[in-house]
């Protein structure tokens, strides 16, 4: 093993470690001799079995954070562990909203830079990371210089999650030290969007709409088609920014990474921002009226046509098949 110890920032949701957490643990196992997790919230003890099953021997539990945003207290707890002489060689952090907050805070505390948008890791002479450039046409390989833990912010779906059959991780309390003025932001109300059907980043079929739909009301076609295919409805950044659909539907660089069996892109031109989030799909179907749209360069089946005609016809055909 080229690497001694790797930490994984373990996020939980709906009472279980998130899929990206399990992906990072699985990858960490292949890179390092020792894998440990850092977690927070009320479910850490209950999740220790799963974290162990995917490779963590220990989980440092920052504890219940109440109404605080996680970034500051979790980074403070990690910095305290590191300053206490328990430094890992690398820390893998999911590229989520909270993950990026933790990464930024920890980076400044440790005076160590962060490598972000990681989609691959290579252990050799130290640890190197791979990053897609220009929407994925190129891959850059990077590494840290100097001493101290390497902070890697990794995109979801970069690695496969595979259990190792390990025993439950030992839970070690790692409460956050007082972070003063930096930790004064408070969550006063949480809103979760209602969802019917599978989760966007776990669905076998994803149907996404873009600016080519013309207007917000036409997004209903995307939802109908997604439902008929037992899939999830996604969106390009353009129509999220325009306020047509909530951010939770966004696929791409700033949104979710998806790797379904089938991805159907409707009225999406295929900006690099979008391609980064869906290029890994097994099969890609694109419907767009512009023959030169970049989305066709990644499509297995491309229909050069009007989404306003093709989509209703497709929905009718699927309904007819029952």
């Amino acid at each position: 093993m080229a690497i001694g110890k790797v930490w994984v920032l373990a996020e939980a949701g709906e009472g279980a470690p998130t899929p990206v957490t399990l992906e990072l643990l699985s990858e960490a196992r292949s890179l390092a001799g020792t894998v440990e997790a850092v977690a927070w919230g009320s479910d850490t003890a209950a999740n220790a079995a799963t974290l162990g099953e995917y490779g963590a021997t220990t989980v440092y539990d920052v504890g219940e954070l109440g109404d605080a945003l996680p970034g500051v207290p979790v980074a403070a707890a990690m910095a305290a562990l590191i300053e206490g002489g328990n430094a890992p060689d690398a820390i893998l952090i999911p590229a989520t909203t909270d993950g990026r907050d933790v990464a930024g805070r920890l980076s400044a505390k440790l005076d160590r830079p962060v490598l972000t948008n990681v989609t691959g890791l290579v252990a050799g002479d130290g640890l190197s990371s791979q990053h897609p450039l220009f929407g994925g046409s190129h891959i850059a390989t990077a590494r840290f210089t100097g001493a101290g833990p390497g902070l890697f912010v990794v995109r979801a779906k970069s690695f496969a999650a595979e259990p190792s059959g390990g025993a439950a991780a030992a839970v070690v309390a790692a409460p956050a030290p007082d972070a003063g003025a930096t930790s004064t932001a408070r969550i006063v109300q949480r809103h979760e969007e209602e969802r019917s059907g599978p989760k966007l980043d776990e669905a076998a079929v994803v149907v996404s709409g873009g600016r080519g739909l013309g207007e917000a009301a036409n997004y209903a076609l995307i939802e109908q088609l997604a439902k008929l295919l037992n899939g999830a409805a996604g969106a390009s950044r353009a129509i999220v920014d325009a306020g047509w659909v909530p951010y939770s539907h966004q696929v791409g660089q700033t949104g979710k990474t998806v790797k379904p069996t089938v991805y159907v892109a409707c009225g999406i031109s295929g900006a690099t921002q979008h391609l980064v989030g869906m290029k890994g799909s097994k099969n890609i179907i694109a419907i767009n009226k512009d023959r030169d749209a970049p989305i066709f360069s990644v499509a297995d089946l491309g229909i050069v046509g009007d989404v306003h005609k093709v989509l209703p016809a497709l929905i009718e055909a699927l309904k007819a098949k029952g």
Partner: protein
Amino acid sequence: MNVVVCVKQIPDPAAPGALNPETNTLNRSGKLIMDDSDNYGVEMALQLAGGEGDEVTLVSMAPGGETSGLRTGLAMGAARAILISDDALAGSDALGTAKVLAAAIKRANPDLVVMATESTDGYTGTLPVQVAELLGLPSVTFAKAIAIDGGNVKVERQTEAGFDEVVCPMPAVVTVTAGVVEPRYPSFKGIMAAKSKPVDNLTVADLGLDASQVGVAGSGQEITDVSESEARGSGEIVEDEGDGAQRVVAFLEQLKVI
């Protein structure tokens, strides 16, 4: 109220990206423009700091004394700008850049610092939080709505599942997403006025920073290789002759999805 907006001046993203073959860093020569992501921060700041005595200050780090992107923000209505330009800054990583911006922001003594969630060209997405930590300030990232309520900033923060309402005492750092507000276009009057608005030009030494902390010298990371990735072969592209939907159905059947 004093609001600082960090503005990045970048090569036109519509032009194909290129790397400097010697350093493998993004090629930032040529004309720079204000990152489109920053339009939203500038607009949000102008709306929040629209009262008597309120002021919006732009802070930017760019090579060669570049101000063309800053002039866009000044034309939208910002009062003044701080530009940090120094040969020693070439090759700075996000943390090095955060140190420079934090030192410059401190001078403006803001009540609120607004930044884009991530830049269009580098998209590391960690810099605003690094700046907040260096300044000892709280931060709220991924804002899709912002309001001021007395000494607090109220933010709707996007989350993986929906959004959280967050209240945070000022001074604070807030990062905005593109949908937060509809940016204005600079008026002709604004463009003319921008030409005479003050831009403070600062160097690394002016900020009291050591050149070894920034630029290539201070960077704790290096790019060791850039190579073309395996191209995803494009498949069958056909014109819709009224049979487009049927072709999709046939493909889905072939994949056994239906």
